């Protein structure tokens, strides 16, 4: 296939009760890319993903997914897309195997028995295949859901917080597998709240209250934020925070273990204020790279300010 983008949507808008929860979102994802979709709770990630795979009708905007019109060709898009919902939405009163069988039949997979067997084996669930899905632990449910949505070998994976509640080892395995699949040409759009996962993506898109407010590679997003960070080590943490608060140039203070991350846009004012605050406390200050998390917290603070009135509407 050509280099045409796998997802290419423009001006996607969805309004619930008069409030635009997704507001003119443009999104372009190329083949083989892993794109992280980030944003605070309620920012419209799930809603955007649902519009891309035809589960919600956009109020405005258009575009293509796998070269097919998202407004007209939802049926064909569904054949080639694996969508993993945020909430576990397989049948809890069916066994693991019955769930996979159901999916395999819906996609008309052949030979069904073997494909299901292989999926079970890869998951490591072969000897628990007769267990009801509802009795699985949270993390295992996620893994079952993921297995079910890649079974038909889709070209595009839309994953909505696939690793929520999954232990670190399983998460690492999951991301290794995602990267392997991407290397073979699978495209992935994955929403997450984890910073380490964002850093594992080729590119991230940050959405806030329905609007994309940052996008690019992780270094690009950090650079674009214009933030500078000084790490303060030692000293009396709580006392220092009190001292630092409100000083010119200091916009964000976050404790990380025994350290404090002090963040601001005006590099010079930031440095001067920190110097003043730590004088005589025995603490040391050192400029450091701004972390993605600091950038996100910054983005969240900004957009809450802008959208607070809208959010408070019933």
């Amino acid at each position, binding site marked *: 296939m050509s280099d045409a983008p796998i997802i290419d949507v423009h001006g996607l808008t969805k309004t619930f009760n008069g409030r635009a929860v997704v507001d003119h979102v443009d999104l372009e994802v190329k083949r083989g890319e892993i794109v992280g979709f980030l944003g605070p709770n309620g920012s419209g990630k799930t809603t955007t993903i*649902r519009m891309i*795979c*035809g*589960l*919600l*009708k956009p109020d405005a905007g258009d575009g293509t997914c796998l070269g097919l019109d998202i407004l007209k060709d*939802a*049926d*064909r898009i*569904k*054949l*080639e*897309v694996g*969508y993993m*919902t945020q*909430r*576990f*939405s*397989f*049948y*809890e*009163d*069916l066994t693991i195997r*019955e769930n996979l*069988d*159901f*999916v395999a*039949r*819906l*996609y*008309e997979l052949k030979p069904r028995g073997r494909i299901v067997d292989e999926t079970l084996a890869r998951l490591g669930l072969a000897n628990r295949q007769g267990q009801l899905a509802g009795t699985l632990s949270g993390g295992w449910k996620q893994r079952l859901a993921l297995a079910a949505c890649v079974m*038909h070998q889709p070209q595009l994976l839309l994953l909505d917080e696939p690793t929520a509640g999954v232990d670190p080892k399983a998460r690492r395995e999951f991301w290794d597998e995602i990267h392997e699949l991407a290397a073979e040409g699978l495209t992935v759009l994955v929403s997450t709240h984890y910073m380490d996962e964002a850093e594992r993506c080729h590119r991230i898109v940050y959405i806030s209250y329905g609007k994309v407010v940052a996008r690019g590679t992780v270094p690009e997003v950090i650079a674009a934020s214009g933030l500078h960070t000084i790490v303060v080590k030692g000293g009396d943490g709580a006392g220092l925070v009190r001292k630092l608060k409100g000083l010119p140039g200091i916009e964000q203070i976050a404790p990380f273990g025994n350290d404090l991350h002090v963040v601001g846009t005006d590099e010079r004012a930031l440095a001067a204020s920190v110097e003043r605050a730590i004088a005589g406390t025995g603490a040391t200050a050192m400029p450091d790279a701004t972390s993605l998390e600091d950038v996100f917290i910054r983005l969240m603070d900004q957009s809450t300010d802008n959208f607070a009135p809208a959010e408070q509407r019933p």
Partner: protein
Amino acid sequence: MKLHRFSVSRIVAVMLKEFIQMRRDRLTFAMIIGVPIIQLVLFGYAINTDPKRLPTAAIVADDGPVSRSIIAAMELSGYFAFTGSGDGFTTEAEARAMLARGDVNYVLTIPPDFERKFVRGETPQLLVEADATDPSATANALGAFTQIVTQGVSTVTTGALGGMKPGGAPVDIVLHRLYNPEGITAYNIVPGLLGTILTMTATLMTALALTREIERGTMENLLAMPARPYEIMVGKVVPYIGFGFVQVLVILLAAAVLFDVPMVGPMSVLLSTTTLFVAANVTLGYTFSTLARNQMQAMQMTFFFFLPSMLLSGFMFPFRGMPGWAQAIGEVIPLTHYLRVVRTVMLKGGGFADVAPNVWPIAAFLAGVAAIALFRYRRTLD
């Protein structure tokens, strides 16, 4: 990958899934098999269709040998047991209140001048009012009443008033069946029961089919996969038709064993029309579930449909006795036609040709609700 227009595999997928879920849902499963059996056992054993010694009040305005022997004969028959103070006589107001309260099933009224008119051969009136809300409770006693009175009177004519001429009706018996004029018989109840149980359970089961998916959150997944509306509909409806069929067999078997209800006509006609009737109700339930937002709404719709089905189909009231508008509504309801079919086949021995006029309205209903379901099926989560 190709998207087939119509995929057997996808229909089978949904069917199997529904079937497994239904089987695991013990309560529903028990209900499907249990409800018809319980109903039939209740009708078959607990509810005595020839009850004896039913409480009776007497308003006697003219006490004499004739009225006394009539009352004695009534008691002797075993059907009537007179209640009330002392001699068992009550005032009119009291008797009427007792009848309304259900304390007595009958009120016997012997009017003033009864004895005198009788002796003169003027054929006096004798009024019996019966509480026919439960017709099976009163039907037999009323049926036997004329004979009981004749017998009672004959003891007088051959005894104390021995000189009287026989011949002609000595007494003009007036029967008033109150509250339910049509007197439904057990034969009428079994086909009706068959139809109403199916209307209720079949519709309710599928009414929950989609709303359950929505409430459990599985709808999002189902919609994200390539299943088409008609595939989901067929896949969800067919297992319940099968279940309805099991119910039918249970009811018919029990009806034959418990009631000796005759099966005059061909079984094939009954079973094929029954399948159609079940399909109509199951599809209606599915349609409800495409319209309802949650299970509560789906259930309310089912009950809302159930009520006119009971009232206007001819199950409760004689169809021809209803006003025109009620008949018009009744003609739309599948149960109306199904009742006619069952009576025609089971009791009158009718074949396909006889039931055809009542088969196509059920088929039309089925097509109509299926079309609504496909039209209303929400393909998105909006």
